């Protein structure tokens, strides 16, 4: 594997995770619990889709075959997506979304903090720009986790269950393979075992503030590195790609 091939794959991992989580958040549009929250979640969706555009465009440039961000987003199939398993989890109820976004935002937050120092200028610039948005996503989801966890008995129990349900998909966030190994050597990627330590600190801190319990360690699902997904991703991309599939090359 060449550095270029590894870097393309790395961009797809970052870009796809933002894209899929963004698509999930956009499903909340017009369905939020209150108007303010509806807008907040749609804003987050837009931030994430914006982030994915940079990385998918860059992947196309590195590949050099003329593929655009749209080609990557709308013309790949399920087994070609490298997003985190956590990002594709269904929205469920509001507490499920809060738990998923919290765990994912904490991951992005520490990952982007570290990637700001990447030797690849594009990745470093992407991280520096995205960190501002992700800082807010983490704040937003953390504050909601605290309010639901430290709210009523019902909200506490529900969001604890949401956290428990999401937990088995958090191991996948930190899986690494030869792509990481190669890019870490080049100073482009970061060691995810280091990110995991920071992630643990943040997650533990907020879970404690929320009077919740950190879920017990359990069997962890994997798949991201090999583009193997849960049953939910196919449905998500079917909806996301519908227009391009039904009306190929449709333009605004």
């Amino acid at each position, binding site marked *: 594997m060449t550095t270029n091939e590894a870097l393309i794959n790395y961009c797809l991992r970052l870009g796809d995770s933002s894209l899929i989580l963004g698509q999930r958040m956009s499903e909340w549009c017009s369905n939020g619990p*209150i108007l*303010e929250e509806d807008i*907040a979640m749609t*804003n987050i969706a837009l931030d994430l889709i914006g982030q994915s555009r940079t990385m998918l465009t860059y992947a196309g440039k590195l590949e050099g075959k003329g593929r655009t961000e749209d080609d990557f987003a709308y013309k790949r199939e399920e087994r070609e997506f490298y997003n985190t398993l956590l990002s594709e989890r269904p929205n469920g109820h509001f507490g499920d979304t809060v738990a998923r976004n919290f765990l994912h935002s904490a991951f992005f937050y520490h990952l982007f903090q570290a990637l700001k120092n990447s030797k690849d200028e594009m990745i470093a610039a992407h991280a520096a720009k995205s960190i501002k948005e992700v800082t807010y996503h983490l704040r937003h989801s953390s*504050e909601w986790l605290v*309010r639901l966890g430290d709210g009523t008995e019902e909200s506490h129990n529900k969001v604890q269950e949401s956290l428990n349900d999401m937990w088995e998909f958090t191991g996948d966030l930190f899986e690494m393979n030869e792509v990481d190994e190669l890019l870490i050597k080049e100073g482009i990627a970061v060691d995810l075992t280091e990110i995991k330590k920071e992630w643990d600190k943040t997650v533990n801190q907020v879970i404690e503030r929320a009077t919740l319990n950190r879920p017990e360690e359990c069997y962890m699902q994997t798949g991201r590195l090999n583009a193997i997904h849960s049953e939910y991703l196919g449905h998500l991309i079917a909806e996301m790609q519908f227009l391009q599939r039904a009306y190929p090359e449709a333009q605004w």
Partner: protein
Amino acid sequence: MSNTDNQGGVWEVFIQSKPGLPHKHAGSVHATDKEMALQNARDMYTRRQEGTCLWVVPLEAIVSSMPDDNDSFFDPSDDKIYRHPTHYVMPDGAKHI
């Protein structure tokens, strides 16, 4: 959603567009507490570079005059143009005023 109003209280939102300028009223948001009010105000009103500082104030904390007060509050100034600095003619030699 049920018919009971569980959106939280109303918070009035003020935005400062540039450092040094006064905060201007922009609108209102619903929220259950300070932090959420600030976050909601950020999401509703500052996504397009509208400002450099945000205030949120619980609606109950704002005391407003009532239309009935208008006669006694505002009208007496109608015929007192000497309360405006422009009423006075400046002497030709006066500087730095």
